[in-house]
């Protein structure tokens, strides 16, 4: 599975990062991103290995619900990882 992943600029010191990853689920793809860019682990995951509350993964520009790590991706999908603070 070849997935085009885009990391939002706020995850990477203001610069958007694009890379190709492989995996059957969003979780596997994120693991691949962390393998290539270890610094992303702390930015994307909490200490229990869950995606942080203010990190959202879009697949083909759409939200994928709460169970993000198990979401199945297919060859050619695009994945965008975004960090945003929305609380007030």
């Amino acid at each position, binding site marked *: 599975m070849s997935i085009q992943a885009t990391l939002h600029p706020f995850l990477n010191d203001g610069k958007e990062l694009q890379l190709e990853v492989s995996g059957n689920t969003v979780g596997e793809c994120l693991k691949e991103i962390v393998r290539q860019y270890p610094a992303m682990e702390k930015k994307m995951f909490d200490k229990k290995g869950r995606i942080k509350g*203010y990190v959202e993964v*879009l697949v083909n520009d759409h939200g994928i619900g*709460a169970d993000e790590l198990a979401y199945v991706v297919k060859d050619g999908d695009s994945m965008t990882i975004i960090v*945003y*603070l*929305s609380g007030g």
Partner: protein
Amino acid sequence: MEKKIVLDDEERARYLRQIIYPDFGEAGQRRLKKAHVLIAGLGGLGSPNATNLAYAGIGKLTLLDCDSVELSNLNRQTLHWEKDVGALKVVSGAAKLAAMNSKMEIRPLNVRITAENAGELLAGVDLVVDCLDNMETRFVLNESCVRAGIPFIYGGISGLEGQLTTIIPGKTPCLECIYPRSIGRGKKVPFPVFGATPALVASLQTMEAIKLLAGFGGLLMGKMLYVNGEAMEFTMIAIERKKDCAICGGGNV
């Protein structure tokens, strides 16, 4: 003809410590008195923003919120007290703000901003301070402010982290230049927060508001300030207008 704004002796005495700031002076204080600011959301960010602006001598505040006070709000939403649990936030907030500054005009509105009512809500407003707690409404507010040409100070928080930027329609990136509109729909869980986080981010928002209204100093234009209270790091991230942004045109209009 536009009404001339003057300060009386009591106001000169009350705001003396601001007036003696070299780049501000009586002219700056008059600009604050003339200003109408809309606080969108009267929770963790809205409480200190409204308080700071009331004490600074803003002429008119519109308070916008459609929720009631809950017990779990009281760790951070400083306008609301134990006796207010169950009351409308705009009613609770307006009462405290009127006691802080009796000369300030207050317009409390128990409504949610929508594309349909935005024009009416924003009429006559000079500046919007974004203190909302969700992205969906924030995108509506962003679009409404861009259409109306009203500056908009975005602030967002979670845990010990926060971020803010000042959006000037036609000059800076708008919220949709930075974020796709599809975010923030899937996650509806309560976000963790300590009261100090919105207090900090709101104070920075108020600082932007005062400079913007009075016309001095530098603003967070084209820059997102990210604050990480856990690591105690402040980071400035450059942000750019998105080419052909559906909302602000991205500089191509």
